[in-house]
């Protein structure tokens, strides 16, 4: 009996001790930052050279009705983010032009802070609709999460290329995703933007 009890106590002690030191994983919210990019393999980025973008970053709320005006993230936050995108586009050989100057591509940035998102609204129609009234809307990828997260989206669409349904096709998409900490962390966002372009060398134009 004593032998059995000792063996059971020994097994229990070893297992409890080891279960107590199960690996923890990430320590900081930055450790959960994620950058995703995707592109249309058949699209010839090298043959293009100009792009236009709005001077605001639209805020996706997920419940925008057709006639509602979109909201934007504050300019003091948006301006440096947009500048970082420009810097990366310039480094890849792209020239920024006005939307009225027939750009090869349109860069449409957006952000959302949510747990789950699913939507069909054309957030950028207010900007380019006047120039290209027959377009449909580009689609953004959808994500689901149990944390309050922030995601910065960057899409490149070619106004001359639409899909079978008449909608614009994302020739390139970049998403910078991370857990929100309540403070705008420029270094963290810039690092994500830089990474999105760094891992997309095919965007380089001649």
């Amino acid at each position: 009996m004593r032998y059995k009890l000792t063996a059971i106590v020994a097994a229990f002690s070893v297992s409890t001790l080891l279960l107590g030191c199960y690996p923890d994983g990430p320590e900081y919210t930055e450790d959960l930052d994620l950058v995703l990019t995707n592109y249309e393999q058949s699209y010839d980025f090298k043959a293009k050279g100009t792009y236009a973008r709005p001077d605001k970053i639209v805020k996706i709320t997920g419940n925008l009705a057709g006639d509602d005006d979109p909201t934007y993230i504050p300019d003091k936050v948006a301006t440096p983010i947009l500048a970082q995108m420009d810097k990366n586009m310039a480094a890849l050989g792209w020239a920024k032009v006005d939307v009225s100057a027939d750009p090869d591509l349109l860069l449409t940035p957006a952000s959302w802070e949510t747990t789950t998102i699913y939507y069909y609204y054309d957030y950028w129609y207010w900007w380019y609709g006047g120039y290209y009234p027959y377009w449909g809307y580009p689609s953004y990828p959808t994500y689901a999460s149990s944390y309050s997260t922030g995601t910065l989206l960057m899409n490149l669409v070619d106004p001359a290329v639409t899909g079978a349904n008449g909608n614009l096709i994302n020739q390139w998409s970049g998403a910078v995703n991370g857990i929100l900490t309540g403070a705008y962390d420029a270094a963290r966002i810039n690092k994500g933007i830089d990474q999105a372009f760094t891992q997309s060398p095919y965007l380089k134009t001649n």
Partner: protein
Amino acid sequence: MKKILFILFTVVVSSAFAQSLTNVQYTMGFGSGDLGDFISKPSFRGFTVDFRKLVQPNVGVGFELGWNTFYEAKSYDTYTVGTLSYSGKQYRYNNQFPALFAADYYFQPEEKISPFAGLGLGTMYSIRYTDMGQYTLKQDAWHFLLRPEAGIIFNANPNLSFAVTGKYYYGFAAGDLDAQSYFALSFGFVFKN
């Protein structure tokens, strides 16, 4: 079939009256093959419990239960699948739970130092998590398991001994996973009845 049943019956009846060994061990794991590619770091979190009935003075039959968790935090990196690229830190976990029937042969059971070797057959449950950002990829499988082993028992006194054992677990491809295999080195107390 009759032969197998007879052998099983003999083993069970013999074991009911025989001396037994219970080996409680701390186990380190060293991944090989697909497991080693996924997590290159060894596992220092694991334990094994071996139970054997001595059906002969130098033959023990019984079972083994164990657990080892492999873990590696990968550095920030970029992974590409087709046209999709994703960058971040990956946290990889692989848990192995072997459960098997085993038989050992003790070369000199009465000596102070008693080497032994054995073979085990059973199953192993593998569960693998790949965490990146706030997303988790889970893969799992129940493998058919083959496990050879060799070790030495140091007989300290009639009731208690120490053991060092080397094992190789090979779980054949199953479920979501390729074959999962690892070497294990165990140190334990052997309680004798």
